[in-house]
């Protein structure tokens, strides 16, 4: 009898790790805004998956990881104030290094930073999952166990709030 793929098997576990770790890390990063904290949460979630390898089938591993990481995050207490970083933008057909452009970029980056801080954790994570990760509403809905419509509304609300905050700064 051939054995079914099982997360308790080292190679299956490694495969799941390779496939899921980056998106899980991003997810935790959007929540915590913290490189180190997100790393710890991700590693802890995988450790939990390993400890429960007999109870979680490989096709359920992804949702198990996201749920577990989310729960672990909720258990952590308030984090130190940290901020997101952005790479420098490229403006088409103009001198990238013109002082005006750089200044505007910097200013906008700071505004965006503040605006992101003003969002709730749920709004921010949903928005970043959509924008940065390029996740569809359907995927976001699956992570939070909400409807696709609610996920779309969450992302749109976040965008509108960001705009409003930036306008007022």
């Amino acid at each position, binding site marked *: *009898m051939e054995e079914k793929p099982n997360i*308790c098997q080292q190679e299956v576990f*490694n495969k799941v*790790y*390779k496939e899921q*770790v*980056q998106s899980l*890390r*991003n997810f935790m*990063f959007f929540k915590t805004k913290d*490189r180190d904290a*997100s*790393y710890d949460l*991700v*590693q802890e979630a*995988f*450790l939990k998956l*390993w*400890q*429960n*390898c*007999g*109870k979680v089938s490989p096709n359920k591993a992804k949702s198990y990881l996201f749920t577990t990481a989310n729960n672990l995050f909720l258990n952590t207490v308030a984090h130190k104030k940290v901020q*997101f*970083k*952005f*790479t*420098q*933008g490229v403006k088409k057909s103009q001198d990238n290094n013109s002082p005006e452009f750089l200044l505007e970029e910097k200013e*906008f*980056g700071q505004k*965006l930073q503040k*605006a*992101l801080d003003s969002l709730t954790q749920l709004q921010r994570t949903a*928005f*970043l999952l*959509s*924008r*940065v990760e*390029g996740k*569809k*509403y359907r995927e976001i809905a699956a992570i939070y166990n909400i409807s696709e419509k609610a996920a*779309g*509304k969450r*992302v*749109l609300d976040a*965008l509108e709030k*960001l*705009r409003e905050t*930036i*306008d007022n700064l």
Partner: protein
Amino acid sequence: METKQALEKWLNNEATPAEMQVLNAWPDFDIYKKIDAHTKRMVLPEHDITSGIKALKDTPLFNKPQQKTPKVITMPMLLKIAAIFILLAVSGVFITTLPTNIQAPIANNQTIELPDSSKITLKQNGRISYKKYGWPFNREVSLEGEAYFEVAKGETFTVVTSTGSVSVLGTSFNVKTENDILIVSCFEGLVSVKTNGISTLVTPGDSFSFAPTVVNNKIYTSKPTWIFNESSFVDVPLEAVLMEIEKHYKVTTTTKNIDVTLRYTGSFTHTNLDQALQTVTLPLNLSFSKDSKNEVQIYDPKKQ
């Protein structure tokens, strides 16, 4: 409202060209695009897979994968099958040793059909016990009282009584136990009776009483008469016949001027007291009288 819907679809990369047209014509769209573009440039932590896995494996907890999960009993397939068979065997043994007890009612005979279609007619007040579910392996019946057996062919069929055991291979026979006296009558086939370590073969037409001494009597019917609600006697003292009448009709009998050791051969019915008394007294040239208190007197009319 239309723009909002288009904007929501755009965020999900699902805006149609027509919706894009609406959005591009909307002055506010620029700022949204700017927010989107800038956000997308967010620096993400790059997760090093190799070092991540290695770090995990270095955690002490990682080496005990089942530690926190409750112990689930896992067995190899073969062991599971074996366990099921053992369970079946044990419950089988238990079920096959469950005895079935049957007691005939005080005033009626009872016919019992055994699993192999052997038939037992149990005389009133008699009691048998056998293992219904173990029957195919063990044809054994315990008997108290009297019963007539019609045994289907097959393995040895044994009737166990307090005095001895009766074994047959397929026949009709009657077994009566009373006060440690065992009476076996054979109607068909061959019956082996074992008492005190001695085996006696009873052939058709023979009736043996065992204990204290072995007495052989002949029978002339094809079935015991009690089956037809009759008691029959072959060369039996009148005294014993009267006792049998007392037993069946719940009456008391007295005798006057007669010899109770007179031998009687015949049978009486269990359904009519007058008829029964007549069949017993007439052949012996005796008479009887009854009173209202269930007392019967037997007397010799010539000696009156």
